[in-house]
């Protein structure tokens, strides 16, 4: 909301510092965003007088002017405007001036004649679209003055952020009220000087309202014999200062009142209103209506229309109709000042993407009591600026007259809520200063009626806020809450605690934590050939590549890979802890959310070759991370890794099972898919279900095992078998051989004999130990032999 300082001062005599006003209002909840000089783009333009004006000898339309700009010497300026003439007072941009469009005025030679400056049109200065000729100013302006000073243009405009509750502050008047309250200044409304010229408006127009809920009040006036033309300078300049482009005297008057008093108005061409009737009634589904911007719009039964005797003529509170627009030739104005149901206006403006200054105010609520003053003042201004005559009377239909809202106010309770200790008188001064009527007959529970412009004062607690706001929330003493709170026992580690522990593990084992958006594009999921069913789509995505919630962490992590590849980072080891989303009709949010952990490894195992040796990450790296997490961090059972066939995007794909439960997948991204992410090497991924891991870890208790007392005895065996035989299968046979004293089995070496690619040698170290005695070599040899026999019996191996 832009607020002009001079306009504000017409209501309230604030003479203090500009910044101080902004600061004070900020602390009252009207946040100052900035202070601007609206006419800064023309600040260097000066007032000049054309003292000589002759025809250019070499041109049939150029003039050679001698212009007095108050300096010791006159300027020679070549001017092409048809209306330039000797004796005119004009705006002059001298050499060196930057024009609003960025053009810098330089010395020039036009057909052989030197020109030192430019005489400007209104359009060149951004004051209107008028480019018929130069802007001829009043002769009373002092030559040599800056144009902005000579015209008394506004130099200070505040830009305030208005919260949605403060509809009353969407006008100069609203800010004047707050300023008066803040600085204890008197507030003066503009004096009404409306001259009515006979007739009876009620014979010329009838207002009908179908549903009082949708339109509690509709006032209308008629102004006859208007002349549509450019609005007066004072009005145009004030609108320009607020960034509002002047249009015509009629439109400017309605805009002027909206900015000044907060009531949006609309002007119909009275002669195009059929049947001397205005009717406020909803549209019907599928109805077409052309608004005055020339666009045909399809309406619904929820839109509210203004109708005449036989057709819709306006989209209530949003935009007028093309069929009743005030044209330049229109003679008679039907002026509307109404109150509409805020939600209805908002819905229509949103659905049609037609936000306007008017709908913005209607959807926040306008002052019903002030309405009559607004239409009267608008009619007065319209009559004054257009020469029109105001028909006597107001055609009014108010099916829901404004009712004062009365709220209780308990000062003690207010003080307890705010943490303050103020005199009752202070609260009373605040309320009365804001225009409330206070009845304190009951000292413990006052009756406070809030004024019609403060739609936000709906309840007792809203009054508390006013007391706090005016006293200053920043002056409330800080104390720490004393809360009696039962200490709760037996609460399991929160989800947050579990997540934190997983993240610390990730960082601890050398992974970088990434955070990707929870949404990706359908394309991302399709590329990985993930099922379409079960996806949670966003109905109004910002873009198609953010239109669906992730069902896997992989797409996000792969995007991370892609981004890093594009930025020359070829050594990636990242993890992410985030939700995965699946459609679920059973859920109250229609969505099932599963917490996941994703790990992506790519490129060299170590950042530099030395001293580790150069090698790229492989399956054992990604698997090792999973094993470390499950066994070493969470202390769960040894996970099992089983090859899974035909996975959508991983090949090989290995399922991770813990105590039989599927906990996730590990694998290599299929080469053709990895290509898309600019991968030049293998991309290894793990994706684990943290909800499963959390459940398992909650059920798991750590048990201490006594340390061994007797020494171990070790035997190594190299198992020679086909390359297709897995280490896991061999281990399973060893462990399943029924040897009680076998404590552990470790793989210690892998060797593929040269020229025998189909064969593989795996060396295992078997540790034997008894809990009750020192083992004798002979006994160990015997048991070891049993293991070897079992291997040979069950597998195609030899030693």
């Amino acid at each position, binding site marked *: 909301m832009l607020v002009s300082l001079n306009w504000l001062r017409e209501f309230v005599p604030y003479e203090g510092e500009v910044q101080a006003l902004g600061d004070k209002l900020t*602390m*009252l909840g009207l946040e100052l965003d900035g202070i601007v000089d609206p006419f800064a783009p023309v600040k260097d333009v000066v007032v000049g007088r054309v003292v000589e004006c002759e025809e250019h000898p070499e041109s049939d339309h150029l003039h050679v002017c001698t212009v007095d700009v108050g300096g010791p010497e006159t300027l020679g300026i070549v001017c092409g405007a048809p209306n330039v003439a000797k004796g005119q007072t004009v705006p002059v941009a001298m050499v060196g001036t930057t024009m609003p469009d960025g053009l810098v005025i330089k010395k020039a030679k036009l057909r052989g004649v030197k020109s030192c400056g430019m005489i400007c049109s209104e359009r060149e200065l951004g004051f209107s679209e008028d480019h018929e000729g130069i802007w001829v100013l009043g002769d009373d302006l002092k030559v040599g003055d800056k144009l902005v000073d000579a015209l008394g243009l506004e130099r200070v405009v505040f830009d305030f952020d208005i919260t*949605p509750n403060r509809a009353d502050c969407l006008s100069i008047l609203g800010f004047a009220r707050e300023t008066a309250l803040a600085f204890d200044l008197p507030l003066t409304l503009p004096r009404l000087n409306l001259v009515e010229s006979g007739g009876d408006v009620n014979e010329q127009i009838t207002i009908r309202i179908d549903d009082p809920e949708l339109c509690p009040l509709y006032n209308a006036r008629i102004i006859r014999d208007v002349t549509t033309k450019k609005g007066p300078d004072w009005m145009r300049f004030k609108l320009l200062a607020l960034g509002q482009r002047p249009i015509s005297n009629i439109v400017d008057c309605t805009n002027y009142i909206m900015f000044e008093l907060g009531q949006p108005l609309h002007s119909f061409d009275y002669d195009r209103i059929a049947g001397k009737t205005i009717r406020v009634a909803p549209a019907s589904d599928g109805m077409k209506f052309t608004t005055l911007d020339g666009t045909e719009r399809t309406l619904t039964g929820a839109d509210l229309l203004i109708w005449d005797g036989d057709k819709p003529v306006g989209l209530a509170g949003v935009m007028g109709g093309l069929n009743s627009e005030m044209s330049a030739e229109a003679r008679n104005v039907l002026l509307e000042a109404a109150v509409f149901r805020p939600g*209805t206006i908002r*819905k229509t403006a949103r659905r049609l993407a037609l936000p306007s200054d008017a709908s913005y105010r209607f*959807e926040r609520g306008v002052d019903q009591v002030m309405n009559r003053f607004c239409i009267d003042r608008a009619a007065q201004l319209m009559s004054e600026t257009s020469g029109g005559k105001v028909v006597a009377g107001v055609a009014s239909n108010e099916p829901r007259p404004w009712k004062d809202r009365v709220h209780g106010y308990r000062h003690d309770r207010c003080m*307890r*809520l*705010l943490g*303050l200790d103020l005199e009752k008188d202070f609260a009373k001064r605040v309320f009365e200063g804001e225009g409330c009527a206070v009845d304190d007959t009951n000292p413990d529970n006052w009756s406070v009626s809030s004024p019609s412009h403060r739609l936000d004062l709906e*309840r007792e607690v809203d009054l*508390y806020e006013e007391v*706090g*706001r005016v006293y200053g*929330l*920043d002056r*409330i*003493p*800080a*104390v720490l*809450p004393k*809360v*009696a*709170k039962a200490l709760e026992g037996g609460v399991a580690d*929160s*989800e*947050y*605690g579990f997540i934190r522990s997983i*993240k610390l593990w*990730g*960082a601890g*084992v*050398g*992974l*970088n*934590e990434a*955070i*990707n*958006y*929870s*949404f990706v594009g359908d394309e991302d999921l399709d590329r990985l050939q993930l099922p379409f069913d079960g996806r949670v*789509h*966003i*109905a*109004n*995505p910002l873009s198609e590549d953010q239109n669906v*919630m992730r069902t896997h962490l992989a797409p996000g992590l792969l995007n991370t890979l892609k*981004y890093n590849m594009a*930025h020359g*980072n070829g*050594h990636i080891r*990242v993890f992410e802890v985030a939700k995965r*989303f699946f459609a679920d009709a059973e859920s*109250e*949010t*229609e*969505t099932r*959310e599963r917490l996941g952990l994703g790990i992506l490894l790519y490129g060299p195992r170590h950042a530099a070759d030395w*001293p*580790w040796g150069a090698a790229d990450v492989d399956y054992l790296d990604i698997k090792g991370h999973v094993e470390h997490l499950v066994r070493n961090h969470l202390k769960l059972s040894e996970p099992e890794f089983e090859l899974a066939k035909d996975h959508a995007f991983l090949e090989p794909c290995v399922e991770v099972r813990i105590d039989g439960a599927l906990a996730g997948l590990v694998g290599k991204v299929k080469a053709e898919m990895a290509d898309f992410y600019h991968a030049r090497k293998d991309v290894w991924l793990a994706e684990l279900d943290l909800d499963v891991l959390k459940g398992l870890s909650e059920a798991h208790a750590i048990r201490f095992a006594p340390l061994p007392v007797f020494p171990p005895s070790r035997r190594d065996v190299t198992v020679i078998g086909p390359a297709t035989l897995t280490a896991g299968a061999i281990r399973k046979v060893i462990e399943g051989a029924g040897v009680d004293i076998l404590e552990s089995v470790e793989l210690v070496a892998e060797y593929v004999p040269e020229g025998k690619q189909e064969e593989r040698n795996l060396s295992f170290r078997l540790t034997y130990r008894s809990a009750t005695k020192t083992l004798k070599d002979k006994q160990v040899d015997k048991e070891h032999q049993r293991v070897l026999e079992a291997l040979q019996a069950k597998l195609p191996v030899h030693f």
Partner: protein
Amino acid sequence: MNDALKSFLEGLDGLAQDCESRKGQACSLKELEELRIEFLGRKGKLAKAMTELGALDNADKPAGGKKANEVKQRITELMDQMEAELTAAETGRVLSRFDPTMPGRKPWAGSLHPVTLVMQEITSVLAGLGFEYVAGPEVENDWHNFEALNIPPEHPARDMQDTLYVSDKIVLRTHTSGMQVRSMLKKQPPIAVIAPGKVYRRDSDLTHTPMFHQIEGLLVDRNVSMGDLRGTLTVFVRQIFGAGTNVRFRPSFFPFTEPSAEVDISCVMCGGKGHQKDGSPCRVCKGTGWVEILGCGMVDPNVFKCVGYDPEQYTGFAFGLGIERVAMLKYGIGDLRMFFENDVRFLEQFA
């Protein structure tokens, strides 16, 4: 002294001198070992000399034996001395090749995302004050996200947050405030919870990302006041940004709190002065000396009604703040988008 004894003793002396003279001869421990064997070995020179001891007269034997011991001791000393010198030289040689500046064999270095780091710091301060963690869905229904928070459909307050919809009634949560509702529905006061998590808005430009992180705090009891809110936030802000940080409460509006306030802190960049050392305006606070950091207020009675609390009995406060904003201030990160690009050169800077 008879000749035999004399010659025996001279022989021993000669042995000692011989050994002494060859002191510099052994250049390595191996050569020294050879030398040791030559003199002290079972078939060495000393052993050989000693065979003559038996030929001496019995009366000379003590003197001869004594001398022999002396010489043996002397040679042993010499050998030890040489060994010590050689060992020292060897150690010196090894040490001289030791290069302490060679790069170390580092384990992989991991990192936590700056959002996680800030979240952790904030939650631990609040947990220390007695707040409990709660978590809930990121895809939320309209009721929890809006209606129960006093934001009915068609209310202009919905414009404050551009919403991503899944369907008419399901949204991506626009704030963590819905967790206030979920927490209060679960239990009766007193209640003191924090809800950290991801939130979503339909907004993407230089200063907005469609996903970001918030933390919500809620405390409800009898007689909770705005002074309590101010005290809690002051403690919290000072722990995060430093003891000298000032806090400013500015009236504002949120549908689910009344009164509502925005909290500014004195600018972390210029210390609240509003200008840099050279006098130019501070670019972080744009010269105001204050930076907006969070929104807060007293829980609106309508919210209490929605969850079945009696607003006449209970009061409470709520606050919510954006984590990325804090991280930007704390670490001096200028570009919000970097948080979600996951450039490893960015990630590696945080540990």
